[in-house]
């Protein structure tokens, strides 16, 4: 079992700092170069901030919130709070003030670390909603001169307080860390559930770490490996990859300079391990194909040949040496994947076509599956077995069961492992509902085990749709297929309790605008492009391609191209871009009715939220198109 004195994250930090003081733990690209922080630096920064918080009167068991983009000081602040026995609460950086207000109020956070003026602005707007907040610590002091709120504390100020306290009580930090117990709650992690207000899952130190150790058994990594942190830190999987794993195995974490230069910075590092969301993989695949489209004819033909040969090889379970030598070797280097040992995708299902595309390219991609409440992922595809549609095999410490399976074994997935969450913060009732009577956690996903014992996740249980004619289909599965097309940015498949399957599509603006320019099609705004007849024709062809790969009964009969993007600020998708079907059904009911009423036009009047939270309106006439299978269905019916 784990060494008793290493049962909390801060203790691991101290242990590593003594074991590898000079070895680099983190790097951040800032001002044009990569600044290196060794394990000793990591510990010293955490020590200063922890003692600073203590000097400010933050006590054990209170909640400290963190709001900002992925930077080393984010992780230091988290560890500092945990060192004092507090609970850390990560808030997504692009959150609207009202959402931040709810989280801080609900969690009764006493202190919050804000990255810069923009985040401080959001908190100061809350007024009474954030009454429990005693301190607001800001890191970047640019433009802070004009704020006079007494709760504001600059980063240098808190460090000064920390150093002062360190002088007065030299052993205070070690004492606080030692006081920490494995059972203390370390992290309050927001569940990216698709319901309205997110719940906070309580993750305790020791169980959380024990589960991550199991993860490392299945997907090992060491102190010489490199990881680049791209996905938002409040997400459970980023907490696992960027906070927990380095403490356990010493892997080095690298923070890019900015969101725009993230992929370029990733290439400079050449990571051995990365974790990206399906949306990022899909965008990258579309970007690769778009740039190849612009390359010379010879390169294009060579690339198409390589993809064809590579995909065929992947289906056979191995890799094509020749394609690798001529094309994919160079391609991996250009994307920064040359040194990848294992790349993970999680948070939502990744379409099999995108999956095969990257496997063919030689990227060791593996699907994860898990929930926030279960300390993140708990199933992973086995490395050497190349399968593109399963979520792999459960970890050694995890048991997975299918609850009341139907005729072909499909039912709700329930899971249990020792590293589970303690429950939802201040929400006993929700905690009880989450568990089955015998203590297994309901995941709310439908799936089944295939012959080789691999878990196949189909869709959310309540999203498994059944048409009025009894045809069962998974909207997410079809949506992923639609999103593989470079021109479709987002798709919502409908059909539950309806006669047939239909879809609402959103164009992928970057690709479609380039496609329009190449054909001299004039357009002005997103809305103007999305409602253009030629664009709708283009998407019609894409839908036909997807329909060809679907069983007859599940084919999309009718679709419409929406005049705006689905956006988290409008609540239509979660922060990690998972579709909120209830919101879509309610907000675009008019469109759905029009489609099923057989009309070919519909007027839509949608509300749009801008970056700073103020709203505007869009109204447009949308064309509803039939696909070829619609006519055949009509004939059959």
């Amino acid at each position: 079992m784990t060494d008793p004195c290493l049962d909390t994250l801060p203790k691991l930090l101290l242990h590593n700092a003594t074991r590898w003081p000079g070895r680099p733990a983190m790097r951040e690209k800032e001002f044009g170069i990569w600044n290196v922080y060794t394990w000793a630096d990591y510990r010293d920064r955490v020590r200063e901030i922890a003692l600073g918080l203590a000097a400010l009167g933050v006590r054990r068991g209170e909640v400290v919130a963190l709001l900002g983009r992925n930077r080393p000081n984010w992780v230091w602040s988290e560890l500092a709070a945990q060192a004092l026995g507090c609970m850390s609460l990560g808030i997504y950086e692009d959150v609207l003030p009202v959402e931040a207000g709810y989280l801080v109020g609900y969690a009764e956070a006493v202190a919050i670390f804000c990255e810069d003026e923009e985040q401080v602005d959001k908190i100061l707007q809350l007024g009474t909603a954030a009454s429990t907040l005693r301190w607001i610590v800001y890191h970047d002091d640019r433009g802070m001169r004009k704020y006079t709120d007494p709760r504001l504390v600059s980063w240098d100020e808190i460090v000064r307080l920390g150093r002062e306290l360190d002088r007065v009580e030299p052993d205070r930090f070690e004492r606080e860390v030692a006081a920490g117990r494995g059972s203390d709650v370390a992290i309050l992690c927001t569940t990216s559930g698709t319901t309205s207000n997110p719940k906070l899952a309580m993750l305790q130190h020791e169980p959380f770490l024990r589960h991550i150790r199991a993860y490392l058994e299945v997907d090992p990594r060491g102190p010489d490996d490199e990881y680049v942190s791209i996905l938002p830190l409040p997400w459970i999987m980023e907490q696992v990859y960027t906070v927990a794993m380095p403490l356990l195995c010493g892997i080095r974490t690298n923070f890019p300079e900015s969101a725009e230069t993230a992929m370029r910075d990733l290439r400079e590092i050449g990571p051995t391990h990365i974790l990206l969301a399906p949306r990022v993989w899909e965008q990258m695949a579309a970007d690769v194909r778009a740039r190849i489209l612009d390359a010379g004819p010879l390169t294009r033909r060579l690339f198409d040949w390589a993809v064809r040969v590579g995909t065929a090889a992947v289906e056979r379970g191995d890799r094509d040496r020749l394609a690798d030598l001529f094309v994919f070797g160079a391609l991996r280097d250009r994307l920064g994947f040359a040194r990848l040992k294992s790349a993970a995708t999680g948070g939502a299902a990744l379409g099999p076509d995108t999956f095969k595309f990257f496997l063919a390219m030689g990227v060791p991609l593996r699907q994860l599956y898990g929930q926030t409440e279960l300390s993140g992922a708990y199933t992973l595809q086995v490395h050497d077995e190349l399968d593109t549609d399963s979520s792999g095999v459960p970890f050694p410490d995890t048991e997975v069961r299918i609850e009341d399976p139907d005729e072909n074994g499909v039912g709700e997935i329930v899971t249990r492992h020792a590293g589970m969450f303690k429950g939802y913060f201040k929400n006993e009732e929700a905690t009880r509902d989450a568990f089955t009577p015998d203590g297994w956690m309901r995941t709310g996903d439908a799936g089944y085990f295939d012959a080789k014992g691999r878990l196949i996740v189909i869709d959310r249980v309540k999203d498994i749709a059944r048409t009025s004619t009894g045809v069962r289909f998974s909207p997410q599965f079809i949506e992923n297929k639609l999103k593989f097309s470079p021109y479709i940015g987002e798709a919502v498949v409908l059909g539950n309790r309806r006669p047939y399957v239909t879809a609402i599509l959103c164009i992928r603006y970057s690709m479609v605008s380039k496609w329009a320019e190449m054909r001299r099609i004039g357009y002005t705004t997103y809305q103007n492009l999305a409602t253009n007849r030629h664009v709708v024709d283009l998407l019609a062809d894409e839908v036909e391609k997807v329909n060809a790969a679907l069983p007859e009964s599940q084919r999309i009969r009718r679709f419409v191209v929406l005049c705006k993007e689905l956006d988290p600020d409008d609540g239509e998708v979660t922060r990690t871009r998972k579709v909120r079907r209830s919101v879509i059904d309610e907000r675009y009911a008019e469109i759905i009715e029009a489609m099923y009423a057989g009309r070919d036009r519909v007027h839509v009047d949608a509300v749009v939220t801008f970056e700073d939270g103020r709203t505007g309106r869009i109204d447009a006439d949308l064309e509803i198109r039939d696909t070829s299978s619609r006519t055949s269905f009509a004939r059959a019916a």
Partner: protein
Amino acid sequence: MIYRETGQFRTSYAEDQAIFRLRQDKIGIAVILAIAWIGIPFIADEYLLRAILIPFLILAIAAIGLNLLLGYCGQISLGTGAFMAIGAYAAYNLALRLPALPLLLDFLLAGLIAAAVGVVFGLPSLRIKGLYLAVATLAAQFFADWAFLRVPWFTNYTPSGSVTAPPLDFFGWVADTPREKYFVCLAFACLTALLAKNLVRSRIGRCWMAIRDMDIAAEIIGIRPMTAKLSAFAVSSFVAGGAGVLWAFVHLGSWEPLAFSIDMSFRLLFMVIIGGMGSILGSFLGAAFITVLPIFLNQVPALVGIQLSTAMVSHLEFMIFGTLIVLFLIWEPHGLARLWQIGKEKMRLWPFPY
């Protein structure tokens, strides 16, 4: 294809400001230096050394000198041949009249004298620009031609005006075989390239490029146009003077003023334009091209069987140079260096186009 840049990150500004940042480039330059220092001397025969490599290296040095002035500072000069002549005769007279001085000191002083003269002829560039400046540098060319022909003191009163260089002994080591002369030239070429590259990427280089791109904008950020232009003239003439010394002492052995006539100035101008204005590598590429072309013109027709008289070859040479100048100015004003850069960029990006 060969460029694998994944995993090359820099943790300090020193690394980021290095001349060769990419590992592949570091390997590339190491290989080139190895070939130059170890490979060529032992496999190249005497003809190759004497007829191609030594003139190429010396002309490359002179081309770097002109490139600093024309490519980096934007001041045209048709008088580089004159500054080479001044360097050569200054070194000759120093060696003759002050034999105590070590040869290297003669080279250095010769370069400084050429630099001083360069500044004098650079003075007009302060008030006049572009084309008028070309005239001022032409004046230098004709003045030097005349001086070394008509003022016997320079040529130590020899009747024909031709003089012979003293033996090349650098502190005892005498370079007389073609291979040793090759090493001397190579050493100076590498040194000049390094110094020029360092100048160009530090303050003075940026001042020159500012003057070249937009002298009004340069003035408002504190650059004194006078010092910037004169420093460019001085450095350019110093390097040209040094090249002149090498051309006379190492390549020719004995020479008369005609060796540094206006033809030399035009050939250097071609090297900089075809090679690539504003690029140290361009100076080497240009020098190689202009040195090899005439030899190529002599050999190839013979192989193909057409017998060309030497006069015809020189006419052809003129025509080809003329055509190439026009072609490069239209098609790629930054010359071979830019083509090299585009090729390298393609290799770094393949299979992507951008």
